[in-house]
């Protein structure tokens, strides 16, 4: 029952207008900050890209992910497992990235900034083929 709820929320977000807040190119405007300057993470994370986040929105985000050319490729939400287990709801999460091509959900055991098991909910703004731009 957990993921379908999250999926419904994500699908609702998918209709947002393109780059509603001028975030299409890195760096996005304040209050977004580069995650690698907030916590010990690589500047570029293979499979994700270069992340920016408004620290006030942690841990859920949104995190904005950019390819090596500074183009926005995805919007990522990080939802702790304990919040899923606790049936916590997340209303009105920002979705500034524009049109969504497809969505990934996957488990992550934790990392600096979100040091607990959680799910990544990834709204890809590029095609599956273009995911390769952040693969390495």
């Amino acid at each position, binding site marked *: 029952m957990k993921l379908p709820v999250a999926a419904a929320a994500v699908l609702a977000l998918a209709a947002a207008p393109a780059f509603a807040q001028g975030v299409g190119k890195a760096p996005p405007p304040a209050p977004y900050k580069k995650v690698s300057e907030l916590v010990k993470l690589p500047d570029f994370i293979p*499979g994700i890209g270069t992340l920016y986040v408004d620290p006030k929105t942690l841990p859920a985000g949104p995190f904005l992910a950019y390819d090596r050319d500074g183009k926005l490729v995805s919007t990522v939400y990080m939802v702790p497992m304990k919040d899923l287990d606790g049936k916590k709801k997340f209303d009105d999460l920002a979705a500034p990235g524009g049109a969504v091509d497809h969505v990934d959900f996957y488990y992550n055991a*934790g990392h600096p900034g979100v040091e607990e098991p959680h799910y990544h909910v990834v709204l890809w703004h590029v095609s599956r083929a273009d995911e390769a731009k952040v693969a390495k």
Partner: protein
Amino acid sequence: MISSRRGVLGAGAALLAGLAAPRVFASAAAPVVIRMTAGMRGEHVAFDPLGIAVEPGAVVRWVCEGETHTSTAYKNRIPKDAVPWDSGYLLPGKTFEVRLEIPGVYDYFCRPHHAAGMVGRIVVGAVSAEPDYPDSGVPAIARRTFPSVAEILKRGRV
């Protein structure tokens, strides 16, 4: 003396009694390598090997192969007189070393993955019994992950 590239552990001489069962120790001649692994998307994180037996004086080297990890010793799950270590965050390709000279059982964890159960155990020298370490502050999944001292000593690495 127990030393590290990024920190220093305390000295001491708490010799413990002899063992039953066969013992298999990693060689002290070269660093004993413990890999810090992760799946492509940050799942399935682990120390590899999970548990290892080494001789007193062995140098243990952690190698980060993916994601961001730490090697962080529990303050209350290491031998008396030993000083806990903390590697700090290690990015892929980075390493951290300690020299372990005080015999006993050393339990450690990865800070960003502690809640996911990423822990490890090193048995240094002759240890005669399972440790009676407190469980407070150790997530249930991590408590279930520690291999027994008997298994580590029997197999050398788990």
